[in-house]
């Protein structure tokens, strides 16, 4: 019964979305306030009904109602409760419900928190939201109905993929979707602006908080996915440039460009067409990602059940939404009048280059991801594009960007004084050269790559810190003076510093764990010991036990250093009998400067076991860096100026001109 309620709720939501797509847009065109307000009610109604549907599905999972086909295909009574819940979105149909739930939640948030938006803009934004919702709701209802019943109901379900029975992976999709779907708001704002024919600083001020929310969530979502791959897949890697990883990374790159571009649009009334285009492109990449994962066009360890029929539906949707947006852009964007002028060497100029590099990076990843398809479609055979390609082309693009990130906060708006800027960069330059020489001197191997990477990371970190030192005039005497200045720095500036610092940490982690990773592969018998990077790993053998729904071969390592105990590692090889699937759990001990990582493989039949031990320097900095970045985003979000919103548009709708002082962010 509850499942049927859920089904009906989805249908209601679709009907409301149909109304919401048309009426408010009409109202905005005619300046009819009643019609525009329909948007508010509709958005809230849509949200409530989808919430009902979502909980109906969750109820089916939690109660193990196997008469619902989706539950029977993806769940099992022996599954722990938390994974029954996570199982709701661990499959194609359920994840679509999560998608539209988040979409409608954002729509509801616009209604509840967007009180300071001009009614016409809000109405148009909600209409665009509804348009996207129509696409996904119809996709769900017509091709991927999660509430389909099975008669007769099976006694038990097929079970959830064991790889998905993991805390990291349970929360990875919600964060990812909050990011993906969150960009639909920026998209809606962009379309609304194009329809209205106006983009001003106030518009950019409204767009920024929503973009920040989406960006922060996406950063965390990607980091979670990567971290999960690291500790779950047993080979110590954390990024494979898999099509689905790329599908989440491309919107992130474009979204970062969008974030920066919207700052320029807000402060200097410039780069409007770029910002609009980036808003459209970012969400389009999210939609493209959805298509790639579910259509079977690309292989991935990750894809949901691939079905060309479903793929065709999404492709059609993509053509309408994205194609339509780009056509609208081609028609309306040329009419957008650009405001402030600026010299190439200025903060705006820096942002333009930032846009350029990030867009080029996103385009490159897109090229590499889709290239196998191009070649195959043209009948030129098969080619595969793997990590060696991406690493080769991506790093040269990112390096100048990171260098730029260190310079940019020191650039002033409109026109920068190069000489003064170089003077301010001296400290960061000096430190990074010291770092470079120190690592070259160490000769740990992979010297060029490793030393350069660490030097670049040091450059950015010191540049951020030095920027703060200059802003608070730390070296010019009174500490209380510096303190009061530090407090008065706006939170969005701190957000920027935090985010950029996070990038530095991330780069250091990537560099060290790639350049100086040590792997030891050998066959060990109980009592054998192997030495890796100064740590002694004593193998104690393998024992067999049972988990809640799996059987386990658990290995045991005692790790010592200079004779004293460091830790004990318990890598596992699990076997899930229901799905007949094995998984590995690595035994990991995380230290600030390295991870000690052990995996047990197959027995050799003679009492020994093949083992792999990895020493991964600074690998935890990767996820730490990502979380610091996301925190920076949240910090920026908490800036009062965002919450109050932009000043209301009054009769003289000249944009609030940006302050010219350097301290304003």
């Amino acid at each position, binding site marked *: 019964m509850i499942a049927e309620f859920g089904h009906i709720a989805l249908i209601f939501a679709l009907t409301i979305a149909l109304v919401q797509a048309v009426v408010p847009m009409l109202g905005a065109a005619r300046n009819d306030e009643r019609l525009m307000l329909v948007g508010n009610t509709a958005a809230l109604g849509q949200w409530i009904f989808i919430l009902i549907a979502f909980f109906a599905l969750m109820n089916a999972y939690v109660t193990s109602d196997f008469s619902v086909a989706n539950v029977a295909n993806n769940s099992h009574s022996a599954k722990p409760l938390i994974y029954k819940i996570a199982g709701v979105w661990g499959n194609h149909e359920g994840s679509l419900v999560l998608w539209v739930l988040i979409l409608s939640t954002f729509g509801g948030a616009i209604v509840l928190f967007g009180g300071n938006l001009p009614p016409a803009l809000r109405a148009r934004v909600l209409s665009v939201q509804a348009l996207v919702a129509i696409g996904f709701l119809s996709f769900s209802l017509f091709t991927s109905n999660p509430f389909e019943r099975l008669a007769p109901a099976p006694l038990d379900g097929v079970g959830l993929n064991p790889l998905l029975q993991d805390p990291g992976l349970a929360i990875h999709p919600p964060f990812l979707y909050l990011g993906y779907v969150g960009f639909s708001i920026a998209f809606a704002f962009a379309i609304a602006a194009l329809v209205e024919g106006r983009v001003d600083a106030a518009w950019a001020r409204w767009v920024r908080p929503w973009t920040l929310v989406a960006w922060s969530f996406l950063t965390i979502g990607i980091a979670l996915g990567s971290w999960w791959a690291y500790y779950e897949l047993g080979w110590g890697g954390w990024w494979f440039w898999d099509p689905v990883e790329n599908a989440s990374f491309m919107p992130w790159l474009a979204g970062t460009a969008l974030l920066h571009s919207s700052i320029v649009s807000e402060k200097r009334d410039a780069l409007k*067409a770029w910002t609009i*285009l980036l808003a*459209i*492109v970012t969400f*389009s990449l999210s939609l493209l990602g959805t*298509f790639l994962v579910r*259509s*079977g*066009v*690309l*292989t991935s360890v990750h894809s949901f059940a691939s079905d*060309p029929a479903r*793929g*065709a539906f999404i*492709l059609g949707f*993509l*053509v309408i939404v*994205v*194609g339509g947006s*780009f*056509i609208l*852009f*081609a028609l309306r*964007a*040329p009419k957008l009048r650009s405001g402030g002028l600026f010299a190439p060497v200025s903060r705006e100029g820096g942002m333009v280059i930032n846009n350029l590099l990030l867009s080029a990076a996103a385009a490159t990843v897109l090229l590499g991801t*889709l290239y*196998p*398809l*191009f070649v*195959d*479609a043209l009948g030129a*055979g*098969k080619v595969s594009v793997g990590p060696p390609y991406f690493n080769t082309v991506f790093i040269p693009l990112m390096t100048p960007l990171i260098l730029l990130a260190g310079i940019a906060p020191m650039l002033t708006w409109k026109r920068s004084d190069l000489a003064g800027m170089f003077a301010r960069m001296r400290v960061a330059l000096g430190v990074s050269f010291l770092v470079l020489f120190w690592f070259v001197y160490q000769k740990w191997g992979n010297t060029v790559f490793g030393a350069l990477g660490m030097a670049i990371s040091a450059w950015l970190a010191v540049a951020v810190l030095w920027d703060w030192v200059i802003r608070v005039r730390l070296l010019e005497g009174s500490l209380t003076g510096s303190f009061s200045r530090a407090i008065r720095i706006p939170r969005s500036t701190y957000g920027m510093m935090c985010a950029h610092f996070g990038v530095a940490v991330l780069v250091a982690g990537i560099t060290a764990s790639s350049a100086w990773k040590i792997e030891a592969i050998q066959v060990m018998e109980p009592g054998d010991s192997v030495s890796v990077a100064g740590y002694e790993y004593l193998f104690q053998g393998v024992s067999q036990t049972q988990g809640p729904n799996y059987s386990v071969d658990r290995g045991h390592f005692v790790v010592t250093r200079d004779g004293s105990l460091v830790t004990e590692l318990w890598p596992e090889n699990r076997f899930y009998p229901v799905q007949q699937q094995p998984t590995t759990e690595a035994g990991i001990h995380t230290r600030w400067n390295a991870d000690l990582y052990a995996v047990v493989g197959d027995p050799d039949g003679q009492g020994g076991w093949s083992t792999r031990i990895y020493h991964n320097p600074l690998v935890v900095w990767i996820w730490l860096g990502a979380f610091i970045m996301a925190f920076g985003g949240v910090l920026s979000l908490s800036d009062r100026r965002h919450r109050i919103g932009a000043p209301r548009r009054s009769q003289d709708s000249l944009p609030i001109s940006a302050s010219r002082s350097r301290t304003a962010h």
Partner: protein
Amino acid sequence: MNKSRLYFLLPVIIFGVLCIFLLRGLSLDPSAVPTALTDKNVPIFDLPALDDQTIGLASSDLGGEVSLINVFASWCLPCRVEHPLLMKMAGDGVVALHGINYKDESKDARAWLDELGDPFGRIGADRDGRVGIELGVYGVPETFVIDQSGRIRYKHIGPITQRDLDKYLLPLIEKLNQ
């Protein structure tokens, strides 16, 4: 002014081209690895017989007639699904049908064939899968079409369905026989 208008049209144009490829991609299988050996001679191999109830398969046995080599294993479920079609083909005598037993135990394979029937003229036992690698096999079942001169003409990946027979295999065999 018109020149800059062109810039604004770029996104639509690029997107349009992209969609054409994506549409085409829906009917392709990205995980299929087609054979790299088309029109090349069958690699030289000599596989022992499964047991004393059948004869082995060597590359020198092929040639002089159009033949099919089916790579199968008793542990392979899709092989079961396609087996009736192979039995029918053997019964119809359309083409010479041989088998390579891939990474299997002889007794398991024998039991499997006893249960489902043996459509093969010759069966080679590829215990360690080396010959499979020579042929570019990466999964089971796979079926090779070999022409009279001993050249590989086509490889079918996965179980054979009636549709595959009617659409690809039988027409090819007919063409080669002319």
